[in-house]
Every structure is written in structure tokens, then in C-alpha cells.
């Protein structure tokens, strides 16, 4: 390091000008604003939607880390969500472990689930991960459905305990909100931290140009595997939140259809943008509520929405300001 710096002399103008708030301050402000949600919304039903949106945010943000920044497509994200939910739920219901123990266990089990399929699939060049994970999610659903003794099978896993703090159970939506809020914040903070490091840069470098990244000493296989496992682990955390807040889990929540929907939400929010997943989570949570009466139309509308957004704004909803700015610049030029 000294050798390079010595030759270039003192660096007087070498810092890039930074505008506005630091990334930590921005995230903290957004989360402070979110803290107001339970005081603003009218009833418990709305708070339950807020909790669901925060869980969905963890799912979509972690998938965005893999897909938007890591350039890999996983069609098993809902499956890893399920692995986390069942791991945490089963440890609680069948083995009497507290949810707080289930939360890290959920991350580990989901991460292992990703490691198992990631090692063979990521050895191959190209988008084999998408195909392998599609099959993997299907297999996981079979496990969730068939291992009745553990998972409760198609009837679902019943009697899951809520999180509790100092013996005080977080058994209502309003009590669970601060937990979902805090965990979602920590996950977003972790992703932001990761991206602002050499590891985050190596993840993006591998996604952009694998050959170039390797020539600089980056092990592309290990980088891809690490981000895949990490992303699945975060989905596992979302699973643990989900199962203890709902106190119930059933297999259809974790199937291929939700896996595809999560991908769509990453794209709609804006793949590779940090706050895009918040828009994705909002839409993913709100639209089914609005369309309760037209359940059959839901998938079609999501598909249509995806087409419209991606054709007009290839970088997703979060990319709209930049796209408009570009348009204005071109007009002026």
C-alpha cells in the first residue's frame, strides 16, 4: 500500500464530495418514520398488515441482495422462508425451545438448505441456480407437507408460541410490531453495511464481470455461494418472525408461487436498489388485500404490473427518479 501512495504524493483533492446524509442516518430516519405506523393506522388489522409488510421486506431485501447485487436468480426464496419458519416453529412446538433460540436456528437451517443446493449448482457457469432452486423449492414443499409428525402436514403447524420479552408475551399484532420493526431494521442495516465493504463490492463485481473479478483475486464461486447462503439465512429469519407472530405455519405459504412473486417484487421495486424492496414489500402486502374479492385476478395483475414497470422503468419503481432525471436531461440537451 505504501508503495502506491508514496509515488502519488499527498492527496489533497482525493475525497469524493458526498452530498446529504450518511447511509446510516438515512436508514435511521426512515425507520423512525416507520415507528409511527402503529400510532397512525386505525386498528389491529392494519398493524397486522404492517407486520406482514416488514416480514416481506426482509424477504424481498434479502432476495434483492442475491439477485439485484449478486446477479443470481433463486426460485427457492419462499422455500428458505419456510425452512426458517418450520425450524423455529418445530423447535418450539416439538422441543419446547423458546422463539429466541429458534430465530438464529432458523437462519442457520435456511442457510444450510442453501449451501446444500448452492454447492453443486454454483459450480456450473450460467443460470443453473434458477433451475436447481426451482426443483429444490418443490422438494421442500413435499417435506413440509409430508413430514406430518414434525410439521403438522397440510393442516399446518399449530400452537407456536409468540416471542416474549422478560416473560411478557408479544402475542398481539401491536406488541409484535416493534420486534418486526427492529429485526427488519437490523437486516436492512446489515445489507447496507455489507454493500459498503470490499465484500459487497466483490459481490457486485462478480455479478457484473466474473472474468474481471477473478483476475483481481476474487473467488467467484465462493462469493456467489456466500451471498446465496446469506440471503437464504435472512429469509430464515423472516420465517422465524412469521411463525411466531402468526403462531402458525402451513405449506402453501412457502411454495413456488410465492417464490416467483418475491422475484417479481424485487424487480418491481427495483433490483439492485437499496430502498426498492420497501416498495416491493408494500405492493406485495397491499395488493392482495385490495384484490381480496378478485383472488383469481391477482397473479394476472401482478404479471401485468411487472410488464408495465419493467418496460417503462427497467430499474423498477425505485429507479423512476433517475429515469425521469435522465429524460429531462435528454430533453434539455
Amino acid at each position, binding site marked *: *500500500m505504501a*508503495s*502506491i*501512495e508514496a*509515488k*502519488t504524493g499527498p*492527496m489533497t*483533492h*482525493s*475525497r*469524493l464530495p458526498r452530498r446529504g446524509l450518511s447511509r446510516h442516518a438515512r436508514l435511521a430516519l426512515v425507520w423512525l418514520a416507520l415507528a409511527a405506523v402503529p400510532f397512525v393506522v386505525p386498528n389491529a388489522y392494519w398493524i397486522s398488515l404492517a407486520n406482514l409488510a416488514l416480514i416481506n421486506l426482509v424477504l424481498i431485501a434479502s432476495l434483492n441482495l442475491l439477485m439485484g447485487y449478486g446477479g443470481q436468480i433463486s426460485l427457492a426464496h419462499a422455500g428458505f422462508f419456510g425452512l426458517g419458519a418450520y425450524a423455529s416453529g418445530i423447535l418450539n412446538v416439538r422441543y419446547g425451545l423458546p422463539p429466541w433460540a429458534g430465530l438464529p436456528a432458523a437462519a442457520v437451517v435456511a442457510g444450510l438448505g442453501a449451501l446444500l443446493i448452492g454447492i453443486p449448482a454454483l459450480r456450473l457457469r450460467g443460470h443453473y441456480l434458477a433451475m436447481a432452486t426451482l426443483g429444490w423449492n418443490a422438494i421442500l414443499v413435499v417435506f413440509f407437507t409430508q413430514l406430518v409428525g414434525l410439521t403438522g402436514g397440510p393442516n399446518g403447524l399449530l400452537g407456536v408460541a409468540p416471542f416474549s420479552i422478560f416473560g411478557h408475551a408479544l402475542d398481539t399484532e401491536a406488541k409484535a410490531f416493534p420486534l418486526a420493526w427492529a429485526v427488519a431494521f437490523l437486516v436492512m442495516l*446489515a445489507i447496507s*453495511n*455489507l454493500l*459498503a*465493504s*470490499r*465484500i*459487497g*463490492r*466483490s459481490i*457486485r*463485481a462478480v455479478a*457484473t*464481470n466474473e*472474468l*474481471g*473479478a*477473478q*483476475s*483481481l*483475486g*476474487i*473467488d*467467484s464461486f465462493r462469493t456467489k455461494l*456466500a451471498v446465496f447462503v*446469506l440471503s437464504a439465512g435472512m429469509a430464515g429469519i423472516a420465517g422465524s418472525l412469521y411463525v411466531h407472530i402468526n403462531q402458525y405455519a402451513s405449506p402453501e405459504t412457502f411454495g413456488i408461487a410465492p417464490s416467483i412473486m418475491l422475484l417479481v417484487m424485487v424487480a418491481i421495486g427495483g433490483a439492485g436498489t437499496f430502498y426498492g424492496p420497501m416498495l416491493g414489500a408494500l405492493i406485495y402486502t397491499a395488493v392482495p388485500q385490495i384484490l381480496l374479492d378478485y383472488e383469481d385476478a391477482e397473479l394476472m395483475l401482478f404479471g401485468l404490473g411487472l410488464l408495465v414497470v419493467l418496460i417503462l422503468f427497467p430499474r423498477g419503481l425505485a429507479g423512476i427518479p433517475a429515469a425521469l432525471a435522465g429524460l429531462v436531461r435528454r430533453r434539455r440537451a
Partner: protein
Amino acid sequence: MNTPRSTGDLLEVEGLTCRFAGVTAVDDLSFRVKAGEIKAVIGPNGAGKSTLFNMIAGVTRPTDGAIKFDGARIDRLPTHARARRGIARTFQNLQIFCEMSVLENVMVGRHLRGRATTLSALLHIPSVGAEERAMEATAMALLERFGLAAKAGLPAGSLAFGQMKVLELARALACEPRLLLLDEPAAGLPHAEADKMAETIRDLNRDGMTVLLVEHNMRMVMSLSHDILVLNNGRRIAEGTAEEVRRHPEVLSAYLGEEAVDA
């Protein structure tokens, strides 16, 4: 970084052979690159230069033979492990991280000099922030040295072709390599820029960098190289200084009709 610069041969190629489906691209080739020298590999199209380059860089696997870097076999190592040993490269057809900023491109080049792990990065322990600032300063200094500082914040994909070539060189240097592999550094550059590139390479070498380059631009090769290896049909037909190579009858016949040698 800790090992002292060896005074002898930094790169040794012994009996290197590469066959593709019956075609022998490189045939039983042996040569050495001494520490501190600029060595060029030239030859007509299809002589096997690119295949040789790719075998040294770790992109193509040799059919037979050995490549030793600083005395140790590297021919079975993947590309990233060779970079770790101290070999950095540029690409003929540019492998830039187009969507990342110019500064970030060079910062990726600092990857091997960083210590942050996935866990320490997730937690953002203080040393990670310090490492980031140091990497940014070093990368910025490199950009200043190569006249790209004003472009630091722009997407690398928005640079002109010549600037991308310079950026790739800066990125490779960010690794602080002991051997720099340059794949046609002048290709596609107008005269003035090619001359500037040659000047840059000469400066680097003066500061102690060992360089192995594959190049079509004879003017550059002849003016720059301490030692030139001439390939034809995957075999060595001559090796020596510019003066020696220029007069070699086989070189003249291989290049017959190409104006290049007189340049």
C-alpha cells in the same frame, strides 16, 4: 508483499503445450521472464499468443508442460489464486465493471489488500470503515496518477475506450502485483494514446514492475521491450532483444508482407 523481490526468473514456462481438438495452438514452448524486465510476445495472427497468455493468466488449461511463478507451479491454480500470488492482468477486449463507478472499479482491485470478512462487514466493525477509507484513498490516488480522477464518480461504462484501457491498468496495479500481464495494451488506441500507454508501461517498469505483454503494435514492442519472444504456429522462432529479433531471417519470413517489423 513480504517476500523480497527475487533477482532471477520470476516466470518460467517449460514445455508448455495446448491442443484444441487436433489443433496445437502452443507447442512445447519454453521461456523465462526475468524479474524487472519487460518481455513481449509477438507473432502473426494465430501464432498462439493469446492461448499462451490465457494459460499464464489461468483462463485456459495447458495440455502439457509447466508454468512456474517465483519458483512454484501455478499451472493448476484458478485465476483468482494466481492473482493472490501476485499476477495481475489487463484484457484485450476489456473486462470492466461497467455499472460500477470508475473509483469502485479500482477499489475492487484493492480487494486482496483488504481484511474485512463477510461477518465483520455485516456488523460494520470500526476496522471495516477504516479499511474502506484507506482503499478509497489509494484508489483515488491511482486515478489521479492516471488522469482519471475527474471521472471517479462516473459509471465506468461511460468512459471512452482509451480511458477504459487506462482504468483497467490502474485496476490491475491496485493489486500491487509482482508480474503484470498486458494483453494487447495498445490495441484499438490511436497513435498518441498508444505512445502514452507505452510511456506509462516504461514508467512502471522503471519503478520495478515486471511486465509480460502480448502486442501487435510493433512500434510499441520494439521501443519498450528488453526481450522479445517471437511465436509462429505455436512455436518459438526467435527470442532476444529488438535488434536481434528484427534481423532474424525466420522472423522476416514470418512477417513477410507485414510492414510491422520496420516500424
